[in-house]
């Protein structure tokens, strides 16, 4: 299913939208057997692009996008920010995690248009110039990746997680939900369960996050 999905999304991002925009004219140029050609219904009218401003990594971007564009596709396909990854496109893997107003979310399940007015930070925006974010440094030091595909999502998620711990957000393994939670292996594993690592680099990911969790502010 995810496979099938990736394909549909890709098609949507390119061919289908182009076809929808140019409508019947584009179709007429494709040679078709006569009976098939007459059977094709006219393309439903495309409601048109939406103009929007997205604030990504401290920069304003003016975009004109198909309303169907997810934040993930806007980042990758329209802003060239390919650090954020598409794993499943259905909220099931966490590869697309970004920070929205400092809070971690899945960019695949958000429409770009819904994010106008928000401050979006992707993996590309975490470092301060040449100076890596402490969570990035910690991932490097702990060797917290293998293929690296899940890593941008893991790091953005971990930065968000550290803020949640500070705010006192409980988790499913917090024994007393009324008490302030603290970082521990069990807490980190539970709180990071929304980020799947296909290479199973979990032990080092947990170690990296625990090491960096003190003092994360961004």
């Amino acid at each position, binding site marked *: 299913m995810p496979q099938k*999905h990736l394909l*549909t*999304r890709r098609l*949507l991002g390119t061919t289908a939208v182009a076809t*929808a925009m140019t409508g019947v004219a584009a179709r007429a140029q494709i040679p078709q057997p006569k009976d098939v050609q007459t059977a094709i219904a006219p393309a*439903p009218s*495309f*409601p048109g692009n*939406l103009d929007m401003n997205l604030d990504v990594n401290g920069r304003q971007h003016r975009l004109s996008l*198909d*309303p*169907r564009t*997810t934040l993930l596709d806007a980042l990758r396909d329209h802003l060239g920010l390919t650090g954020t990854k598409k794993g499943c*496109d*259905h*909220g099931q893997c*966490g590869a697309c*995690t970004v920070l929205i107003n400092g*809070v*971690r*979310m*899945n960019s695949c*399940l*958000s*429409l770009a*248009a*819904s994010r*106008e*007015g928000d401050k979006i930070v992707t993996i590309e925006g975490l470092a301060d110039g040449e100076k890596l974010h402490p969570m990035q440094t910690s991932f490097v030091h702990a060797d917290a990746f293998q293929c690296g595909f899940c890593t941008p999502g893991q790091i953005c*998620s971990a930065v*968000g*997680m550290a803020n*949640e711990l500070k*705010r*006192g*957000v*409980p*988790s*499913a393994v*917090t024994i007393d*939900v*009324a008490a302030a939670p603290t970082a521990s292996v069990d807490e980190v*594993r*539970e*709180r*990071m*369960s*929304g*980020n799947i690592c296909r290479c199973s680099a979990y032990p080092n990911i947990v170690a990296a996050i625990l090491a960096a969790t003190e003092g994360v502010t961004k």
Partner: protein
Amino acid sequence: MKAFTFERATDVDAAVASSAKPGARFIAGGTNLLDLMKVEVEKPAHLIDISRLPLRDIAETPEGDLTVGALVSNTDLAAHPKVRERYPMLARAVVNGASAQLRNQATTGGNLLQRTRCPYFYDVAKSCNKRTPGAGCSALQGINRMTAVLGGSDACIAAHPSDMAVALMALEATIETKGGSKGGRKIAIADFYRLPGDTPHRETNLEPGELIVSVALPPPPAGQQTYRKVRDRASYAFALVSVAAILDLDADKRVRGARLALGGVGTMPWRALDAEKGMVGAEAGDKAFAAAGAVAMAGARGRGGNDFKIPLAKRVVARTFAGLATSISKG
């Protein structure tokens, strides 16, 4: 995904007015609606983004209720000090659902209205009465391990997926709306969800275009409360069985009051009123707790793949009450 037009609602009245547009739907966090739009199970012609409406507050009323705005994120609900102190079962239910990222994005109103995860509902190549009324139900004879054992009909056995709503059932929450034919109303959660019967596509008693504005929690009943979820992996999975339970004991360790609701097993979040009543006056202990499980599941019907949920639910009910009794005796 089918094409749609998009607008961002600026206030509640404007959102309600726009909902009269053909094929209009509200979108809040989008974590369920957008997911279903990608597979073309949902095909709205017009989206009304309600995410910026001022419905993000959690406030205490003079009567002692806690009102939760429809757009309060699942995380903010679980993290609120009053929720953690007074309604720990709700905080637990919420953090047992989905992932941290999803809970940050998902809203209270959207969580109540999330649709089933039945694989046949998601697969547009299969028949599903919920998706296409009258098409038939592939789950009855199909892979039905995750489906409901309570409240099903010959038209639909899809389980309700929400964790939060199970706790809200046990806490007797009220849902407040704007719009619809009455212009707005209060609906007790017991009257909110519908059994599938022969109209499984109608899941709640909300009218088209009726907007949830808040959820009110009455003061919690006396006793200890918790939420326990059993699932296929330790985290980030829907419930096979979940239990929201409250237990109140008197000095002689007899049950003074109990609340019980179940998730994962019902076609709607499932309140087990008979089981609650049967416990009152009984001596707290394995016998009474096992009986509560048996009464709660008395009307259950397995369809093959989901048969295991019936004994599992009975055991989870008994163990959850036993855990509460232990923690009460420890003070």
